[in-house]
């Protein structure tokens, strides 16, 4: 554990921007998101959590996969793989965990996604512990926590005028080269410990038994009503650090264009609309069920993990205050009923 004075932070960030693309929380009109910064003073570490999660650094809202030009006899292709070295600075532990979950999707037996994986490989994660978790966070129920280190390379613990820096990996160590930081003394360690103990996550969900309930609930009447106030937008999925659905389209003009991948959402009817006009998820009921099932059942089936890190963004951003914690509680409260009944 090392010690970093707050006044050293700027110089460190400035130095990092020389060698890396640094993505850090930036406040635009009260809306905090991870943006590439040119200098350390552009970033704010005084924030609860970003509006849009840092997943957008590795898996952008929209990205070119490749561009092409068709000539008479041949096609010219240019792949767009982003190989820049990056640092995501000041992300929360829950968001670091989300990358571990996303890894399953983009790197598994069936698929290797070079776009995500190249960025992932070249990105170092510097976490910032949460001294004051907001009331909408329930990360501790999902295997994370305000000072969880899983997935991070470095963790900053704010102890007032200084940060206690936990070096977690060699890549993290590399970011500190030339810094010659002192080791955290006894007093600083104790202060960090106190900060950690004071950071209570008050909100909880019960995951125990949830998956086995969902296993047999596809046809349960609970789905008829639970979605009713949902408007079918993508405020929840686009701001969720674990949601990862996408759409691929060609944006072309004349004989040249690019293939673009953009976020898509299971809450949109278009997401499952077939070319024939048939839609296997014709109403909001099926779409809302899909969102819940994917997070708490299918992802568990596929990767043995729940696709939620308890960041609370969907709760804060839903225009009708449809609270995922209440949805979980309601499912937990229903009687188990077999699919076949």
């Amino acid at each position: 554990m090392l010690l970093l004075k707050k006044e050293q932070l700027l110089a460190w960030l400035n130095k990092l921007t020389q060698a890396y693309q640094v993505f850090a929380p930036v406040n635009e009109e009260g809306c905090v998101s991870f943006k590439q910064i040119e200098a350390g003073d552009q970033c704010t570490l005084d924030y609860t959590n970003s509006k849009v999660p840092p997943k957008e650094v590795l898996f952008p809202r929209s990205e070119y996969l490749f561009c092409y030009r068709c000539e008479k006899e041949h096609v010219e292709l240019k792949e767009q793989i982003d190989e820049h070295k990056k640092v995501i600075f000041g992300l929360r532990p829950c968001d670091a965990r989300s990358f571990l979950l996303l890894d399953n999707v983009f790197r598994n037996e069936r698929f290797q996604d070079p776009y995500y994986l190249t960025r992932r490989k070249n990105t170092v994660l510097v976490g910032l512990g949460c001294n004051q978790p907001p009331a909408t966070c329930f990360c501790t129920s999902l295997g994370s926590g305000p000072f969880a280190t899983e997935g991070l390379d470095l963790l900053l613990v704010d102890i007032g005028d200084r940060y206690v820096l936990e070096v977690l990996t060699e890549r993290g160590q590399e970011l500190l080269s030339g810094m010659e930081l002192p080791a955290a003394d006894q007093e600083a360690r104790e202060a960090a410990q106190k900060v950690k103990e004071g950071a209570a996550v008050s909100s909880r969900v019960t995951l125990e038994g949830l998956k086995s309930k969902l296993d047999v609930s596809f046809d349960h009447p609970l789905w008829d009503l639970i979605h009713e106030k949902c408007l079918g937008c993508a405020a929840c999925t686009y701001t969720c650090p674990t949601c990862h659905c996408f759409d691929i389209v060609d944006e072309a003009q004349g004989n040249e264009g690019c293939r673009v991948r953009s976020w898509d959402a299971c809450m949109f009817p278009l997401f499952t609309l077939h070319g024939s006009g048939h839609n296997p998820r014709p109403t909001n009921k099926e779409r809302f069920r899909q969102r819940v099932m994917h997070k708490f059942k299918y992802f568990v089936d596929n990767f043995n993990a729940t696709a939620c890190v308890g960041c609370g963004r969907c709760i804060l951003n839903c225009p009708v205050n449809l609270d995922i914690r209440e949805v979980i509680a309601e499912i937990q409260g229903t009687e188990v009923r077999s699919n076949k009944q």
Partner: protein
Amino acid sequence: MLIKMQDITKAMQEKARELLQNKEVELVIGFSKGSLPLRYTPCFIRQPEEAEKLAWGYGCENNLAVYLRKRPEKMAVIAKGCDSRSIVELIKENQVKRENLVIIGVPCRGMIDRQKLSRLLAGKELREAEIKDGLVAVQGKDISASFPLDQLLYDSCLTCQHPNPVLYDYLLGEQVPARGSDTFADVAGFESRPPAERRSYLMKELSRCIRCYACRQACPMCFCEECFADCSMPQWVSKSSLDVQANLFFQAVRVLHLAGRCVDCGACDRACPMGIDLRTLTRKMVRDIQELFGYTAGISLDEKPPLAAPIKTAAGHV
């Protein structure tokens, strides 16, 4: 006299219970207490004994008219001034059957803008709030403050000319006085800026757009079977958000599609998770429709929507 929110809540519960008990309706759409401080959330009540979930307060910010289309059953809805105006337009557009709908009107004193509050709290988290005598007392970790209610209301509420429902079957509470007339000074201010400046302001706002379409989904009047933004043959607008221009184009067309239909309820603006200023566009259009056609949306069932009626000019009908 029903002025207190608690009294309105009680009256609302009683009316809902009665309507359900007498089988006059199968469903009551209203609000219940939400899961965040100051927040209320849309709720759907089908059993008389569930009516006690209904609640009324300064966080009933959603426009419930958005839930009324394509429902076969007889239902009742809680309607503020703006909700009732959207209902009027929906009836005129044959989207809602008047005879299937019981409108429980509630005069509205304005709703609290939690974003304004959060700016005042400089990002500190609100944990609890209490409203008394026109003051909002807020509590949180390291905060304890009190703000005049008026300072916290949505801009759309501060310019609202129709806080009282324009169409209703029952009215809960006393009519509230409308605020001083809406001069659209904000629109005039925007228009007075050079075109390049206006454009760069809108581009800057829309650069944050993530294309979640919460604005569209929250609007009671945005109900096209297939939104032009979703259409792929032909593709009218880029599906990606790489190009801010496309975000602006989406918004511009959305707003134009609402000409003479938008009631300036502000639901789209509120729904936007990115805090993008959508009202500058919607209000410009509302004001233009008033100036060009002398029409204000959602005021009367008889007045023809401007784009459906023959255009009157100095020379007569066209």
